[in-house]
């Protein structure tokens, strides 16, 4: 692989090495967070934020590296969540088996979606993934006897009751996902992926099968999206359409990734947590909170197109 030269020194490398160094330092702090006296309520917010972080990172691997805008993140998440919930609510399997099965189902569904979708480029790929979410919704409503329909399905068992334990589970999921995503992104595989994303013709001329690489990226994304979806189902106690299979949630994930800084993995994770915390911070404003969150997101989009992490990058350059 030595002879492979990616045109122009990858901006990713410059950015992610020091940034992710800081991020790894942050890991022990994050693990210790619940023990420094923050309220259980705050822990609850971070728990949800961490699941969201995993979704946003999964999206970033596909968009930031493979160049494919996935508008159907909730298709992958939803398959994971509903598979786990349906297995558990029928008493077929204990939680951990359900979660692994959910992640596996998500990968399978991801392959099923990606094989036809990857024949298309750019906006058409986005459209197919969006339609996939709509179809999954229709199917869940059509088979409401098994799936609970539009009001959702209750999961009888829990992984853990204590907020701290739930937080650590979500954190574990986020750290493992972040680790795998970063390793994948920085490996030769990630560089080829990026080359394909930026200049598919050249990359193919060099003999790299773009479908094969993108399919693999899709599988990584699906695996962790499904895993987080299944874990979150057990945390929430229910799986329902508006939490897990909703185009609007998919868009929120994209917004989180862009706010955090696309093409950085860690940026989207920060964006995911940020969006959840901001929404919760604005809750006392009641009706206006959604409006304010949308305005803030729009401002970041227009004035910080490289996201919050891009801001850090600018500062570092200035020094």
């Amino acid at each position, binding site marked *: 692989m030595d002879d492979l030269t990616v045109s122009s020194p990858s901006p990713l490398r410059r950015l992610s090495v020091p940034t992710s160094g800081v991020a790894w330092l942050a890991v022990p702090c994050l693990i210790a967070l619940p023990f420094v006296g923050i*309220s*259980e*309520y705050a822990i*609850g*917010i971070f728990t*949800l934020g961490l699941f969201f972080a995993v979704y946003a990172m999964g999206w970033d691997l596909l968009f930031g590296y493979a160049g494919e805008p996935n508008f159907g993140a909730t298709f992958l998440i939803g398959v994971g969540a509903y598979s786990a919930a349906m297995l558990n609510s029928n008493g077929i399997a204990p939680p951990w088996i359900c979660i692994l099965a959910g992640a596996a189902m998500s990968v399978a569904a991801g392959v099923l979606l990606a094989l036809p979708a990857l024949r298309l480029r750019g906006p058409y790929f986005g459209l197919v993934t969006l339609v996939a979410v709509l179809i999954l919704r229709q199917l869940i*409503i059509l088979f*409401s006897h098994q799936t*609970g*329909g*539009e*009001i*959702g399905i*209750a999961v*009888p068992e*829990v992984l853990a*009751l204590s907020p701290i334990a739930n937080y650590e589970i979500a954190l574990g999921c986020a750290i493992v996902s972040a680790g795998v995503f970063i390793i994948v992104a920085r490996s030769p595989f990630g560089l080829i992926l990026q080359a394909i994303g930026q200049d598919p013709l050249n990359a193919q001329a060099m003999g790299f099968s773009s479908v094969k690489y993108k399919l693999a990226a899709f599988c990584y994304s699906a695996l962790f999206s499904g895993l987080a979806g299944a874990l979150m189902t057990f945390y*929430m*106690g*229910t799986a*329902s*359409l*508006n*939490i897990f299979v909703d185009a609007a949630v998919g868009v929120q994930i994209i917004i989180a990734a862009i706010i955090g800084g696309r093409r950085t993995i860690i940026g989207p994770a920060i964006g995911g947590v940020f969006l*959840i915390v901001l*929404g*919760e911070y604005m*809750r006392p404003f*009641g*009706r206006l*909170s*959604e409006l304010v969150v949308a305005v803030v997101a729009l401002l970041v989009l227009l004035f910080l197109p490289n996201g919050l992490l891009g801001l850090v990058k600018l500062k570092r350059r200035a020094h």
Partner: protein
Amino acid sequence: MKSAKLKLAAVGLALGGVLSSANAQTPPSVRIGVMAKFAQINGAAILNGATLATEEINAAGGIKGRKIELITYDDQGSASDAVLAFQRAVKQDKVHAVVGTFLSEIAIALTPWAARLKVPYIVTGAGADQVGLLVKQNYPAYKYVFRSILPASSTARGVCESIADVAVKQLGYTSAVLMTEDAAWTKSYDEFLKNCLPLVGLKIVETVKVATDTSDFTPIFQKIEAAKPSVIVTGVGIIGNKPVVQWHNQQVPLLMMGYNAQAGASAFWKETSGATNGVVTFTAASEDSPLTPKTVPFAKAYLARFNTTAAAHSFATYDAIYLLKDAIERSGTTDADPVADALEKADYVGASGRIVFQGPDDPLTHDMKYGNGFVTGVNIQWQEGKQVTIWPQNAATGKVVSSPFASK
């Protein structure tokens, strides 16, 4: 000189006020969270009902001298938002109970959280049977969850009983088409009515399931008319006002009876620009029907305070706050377990009827008992801009009229 003296007096008074309020040990307030999407009419109805009950109770001296402090949580109509808001209510604001939630999806999502965080939670908007079933299956862990609005199956019973009176006896109808939306809550609703309607003398000639995102009802109404029924029995909520508006535009010559969640609200006339004229729906209570001695005074106070009439959810939430007051007074504490146990034993006459909850062995645990002597609900018909109560007989304020478009 005079003004200086006055100022001094004012300062003195203010000081005195500060001192006396610091001296008199005000007992801690009872904190109750109310949750819904307040931008929606249903959510506003929930909030208003809670506000009115709180104001009344506080004006009358509170709960054993403790004032109620109402804290609002906007769930934005999303279950994940609701779960966060519920944690905020219990962990951060330390509420003693939560009332509200309109969407069944959210009520089902919050039910396990009420059990995990051990806080009494009274559902006052969502009608899916699954809530009561969840409590029954997970009793006693889920014993903190109650509901002061009728579940879908009780609504079906109310629809059937009222149709027996109004449609069969008064209007002489013999056949019906059942038109319900394709949603989880209509499963038990349909099943019940398919058994019950033929028994009371109304043959079902056709059953039409309608997707909740349907925009064009023309084919549906034409199909229904082709079956030549004497009435359409509806079960709609999520669809919104489309069936009513198009029923009016197309001048379908059949009455729509049954349950229409939107038509129970007083703003429905304005939202449909009057298209709802003639529509009949079952609802918890209406403003002019003396179901209990509390019904009409509540409805009048509500109208005066909020300049709109009370919806079913307003009745349910108003009663829920009083149920909590009653339970806290009987148990003598605001601790979750004694309050939940007291709620279970409640026998309280509220604005919507006599409220007694079903026990762990009844079909829907902690749902209200339905029927004569308990909560029955009412039927209203929209007549020229007004909701007229036409059922039950003891609460009726008018008579049903047949379809505005019926061929003469």
